[in-house]
């Protein structure tokens, strides 16, 4: 029996760190996905004629960000996630602060103010804000297990969520604000919230759709119309959808080969290395490449859910649930967009979309998950 560690003001019972309890499957699949992402960055940018300069610049930058992400993952895994819970209110304020900074001093690109430039690097604070919001909401619901059935708990939870969603929406980044909402539903669901309350929330959202429609920007409305009928404006709002479908479909069973795709290097696929990266993947590697990606994702999600199931406390469980929700929602929306099952929104595909903020944030989230895994109760004999 190990010696008890000294108690801290935050721990009534210190949780020992056990390296042996790192989730190996989660770790391996994370590394495989990072590798897959680098391969896809190479494949979609090596031949591109939209950019000039070193054809490897994107791969090198992606590798650097992958290293940063893995370091962040390792660091956060060492850190007892209970501390994150203890500082949850601070994290919440910090999150809203980050999102406000983006609106105040963020730089514009493609008509949206989503990133902040620091020392020549651009950061999308909303990416890390998603992970911080998972921690905040997990802590909120974990602490209210007793009153989970009360509508008041849901309303307070929504009140916590609303400022973050609105700040992100103002950037404007409809997609990411939807990720925040999805995270809320995922965590509330696994926390044991009443199903009728969740259904009621969805119903209210659906009923208020005309109001939301009125609040949407013109380009967002055009994207929704184009989603319903891309050929109504094939050169305009429908262009991305049609070209994405062509890219995906033309990949066939095994794809055209790495860097051999034509839709993205020739500029038919816009933002082919991030938003529409899945279209490039399906074109280059075909149905087979997509199924391999899906298999890796499923393993990752199952591993994340297993960590959640085995967590020693509700906070750890809900973190696992929140991370799984975030991942599955982003995958659904990004892939769905590429194959015209979802309207066009700028949500990155985890690991595969080229972008440092997204990758580091996902690694950060998985680091927290490993922290949860490492501090679970050991398996029984």
């Amino acid at each position: 029996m190990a010696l008890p560690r000294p108690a801290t003001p935050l721990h009534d019972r210190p949780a020992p760190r056990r390296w042996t309890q790192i989730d190996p499957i989660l770790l391996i699949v994370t590394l495989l996905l990072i590798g897959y992402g680098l391969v896809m960055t190479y494949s979609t940018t090596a031949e591109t004629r939209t950019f000039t300069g070193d054809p490897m610049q994107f791969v090198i930058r992606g590798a650097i960000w992958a290293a940063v992400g893995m370091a962040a993952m390792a660091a956060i895994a060492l850190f007892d996630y209970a501390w994150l819970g203890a500082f949850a209110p601070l994290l919440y304020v910090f999150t809203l602060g980050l999102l406000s900074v983006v609106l105040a001093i963020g730089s514009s690109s493609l008509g949206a103010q989503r990133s902040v430039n620091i020392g020549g690097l651009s950061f999308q604070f909303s990416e890390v804000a998603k992970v911080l919001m998972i921690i905040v909401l997990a802590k909120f619901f974990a602490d209210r297990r007793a009153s989970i059935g009360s509508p008041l708990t849901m309303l307070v939870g929504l009140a916590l969520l609303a400022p973050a969603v609105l700040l992100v929406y103002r950037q404007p980044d409809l997609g990411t604000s939807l990720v925040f909402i999805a995270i809320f539903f995922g965590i509330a669901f696994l926390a044991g919230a009443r199903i009728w309350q969740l259904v009621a929330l969805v119903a209210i959202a659906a009923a208020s759709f005309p109001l939301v429609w009125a609040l949407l920007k013109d380009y967002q409305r055009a994207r929704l119309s184009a989603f319903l009928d891309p050929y109504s404006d094939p050169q305009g709002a429908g262009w991305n959808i049609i070209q994405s479908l062509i890219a995906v479909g033309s990949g066939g069973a095994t794809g055209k080969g790495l860097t051999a795709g034509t839709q993205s290097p020739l500029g038919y696929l816009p933002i082919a290395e991030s938003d529409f990266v899945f279209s490039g993947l399906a074109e280059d590697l075909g149905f087979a490449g997509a199924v391999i990606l899906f298999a890796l994702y499923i393993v990752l999600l199952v591993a994340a859910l297993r960590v959640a199931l085995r967590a020693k406390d509700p906070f750890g469980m809900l973190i696992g649930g929140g991370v799984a929700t975030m991942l599955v929602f982003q995958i659904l929306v990004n892939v769905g967009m590429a194959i015209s099952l979802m309207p066009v929104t700028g949500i990155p595909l985890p690991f595969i979309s080229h972008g440092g903020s997204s990758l580091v944030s996902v690694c950060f989230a998985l680091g927290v998950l490993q922290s949860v895994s490492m501090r679970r109760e050991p398996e029984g004999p």
Partner: protein
Amino acid sequence: MRQPSRAFVSVRRFIAFGVAIVVIFSTLTARLYDLEIVRGDYYHQLSEQNRIVRLPVPAERGGIVDRNGYVLARNIPGFAISVIPVDLSRTREDELSQRLAALLDLPSDAIGDVIRAQRIRNPYEPVRISKTPVPREIALVVTERAELFPGVRVDPESIRFYVDGTLYAPVIGYTGPITEQELAKLKDSGYLPDDDVGRTGIEDVYEQFLRGTYGWREIERDAAQREIKTLALQRATVGNTVSLTIDDRLQKLLDAELRKGVDEDKFTQAVGVAINPQNGEILAMVSIPGYDNNMFARGISTAELAALNADDRHPLVNKAIGDRYPAGSTFKMVTGLSALSAGTATRDTVVNVSASSFSVSGTTFYDWRAHGSLDFVHGFAHSSDIYFYTLAAGTPFAPNVHGVGPDAIAKYARMLGFGAPTGIDLPGEDGGIMPDPQWKIATFDEPWTIGNTYQEAIGQGFVAVTPLQLLNAYASVANGGTLWQPHLLKQVTDAAGKTLPIPQWTSQKLDMTQENLRLIREAARRVVTIGHAYMPNLKIPIAGKTGTAEFGASAGKDSAGRNKLGFHNWFVSFVPQADNTDPTAQIAMAIFTYDSSKSLCELCLNPAVGMTQRILEQYLGPNK
């Protein structure tokens, strides 16, 4: 080990979560299966269509040469001026428009509009500014002072060049930009909106031979429509060379004589056509005044076109085939052959032309003199009107000679090709008029009179012929009774030098005896040796028939008080191989001078006769 309470875990919710993940990935996979496996080929095709575009490579138009290979139409290099909007800053747009306008003689507003429209459509794609090919000097200005012409591109293209423009324009015609209606019809044959097509003449009729086979270039292009690289190339094949039956030497001899007469104002218009009676090949075809078809090739200006259209001598019409005239005495050949063939006359039919006029029911008909007693040969040689009035409808001068009548004349005239197009391989051929009593009833609702027959007998009245019709009729007499389809196409040769199949030319046998045809040839020879078209010191056995055709405008009264009408002159000739009546002629020629009355008296020598002698002696003579 203390076993913690795991009551906070709701396994059912996790199972539900897991099911949701399975549903989501199944849906995505099913959709991907449909897109990539089921409809993969369809989308693959779409991606290729996106990326690969096949551009046409225009082919050079084939050349046109005379029967000896002398070049009549070829292509010379010209240049097209285009602007690529993306390489031209908006601030310099007006400046460039004005500079190009001055250089190309186009309105600068229009140039600016074209550039702005293209900037919106696709700024990476060059838009053509010059409407017609630009000569090298102007292209050089643009390329050498490139800093003054931002975004301007110069591409080579060819200009059709007609070596002897005005001389051959009535035959060769010209090419011009394809119209939208034509394009709609020809698009399937590979015609493009910027293409030129033959507009008239040989260029039009033999478009299918002259137009080359366009090649293509498959290029890869990006989403901005910029060309990335050439993937495949099929070279264009130059059009076929069209050889005409024309002999440039004869064409120029004929043109020189006729042009001199027009220049000296002896007549206002002139036509000369020569044919090989043995096969219907046109050896020369001159129509004056004509026009320079190079004006059309380089893009005719509105003023130039207006001037051509305002000229009442119709320079754009090939008068050898496109207009009809009274045949005058040349038509006596038809009247004579009709009477001979119908059996109402023989070579020994004698008419005693004891006076120079006679009257029938109040109308007086004249001859140009009281000839005395004439048989067929002498009646023809001296071109006695009364002799042929007699053969046509009978006169008091020979009570025992029965006129052959207008129906027989019309029948044999039509057999000789009058009243219908000859079928020459040129557009715009007139069929002439060959009247008969039914025609008059149908046209004027008036009965035919004997006066109509008299007028018709000497090629006046309703009879109207094209110079080519008249020539072809004489050619059929000269060759012993075969009416050929006259034609200009001799041979078509492809780029590799191989001869291509060309149309079969038709011919018809005349239902006339060799004896009668021989008699006409004999009489025609006598026209030159003793008769109306005496040619002094003639070195070759020319035979022929003169004609003086009166037309509407009166030129005052002569001493006898008759209306002095304006008149045209004809001389139709053929040259047998030896001075005999055998059907061996290899050349027949018709010369027509329009309104010769301006400086000539009616009884003066027919100007066409002298010209014919000079031309044929030079063409066929020993020092040719």
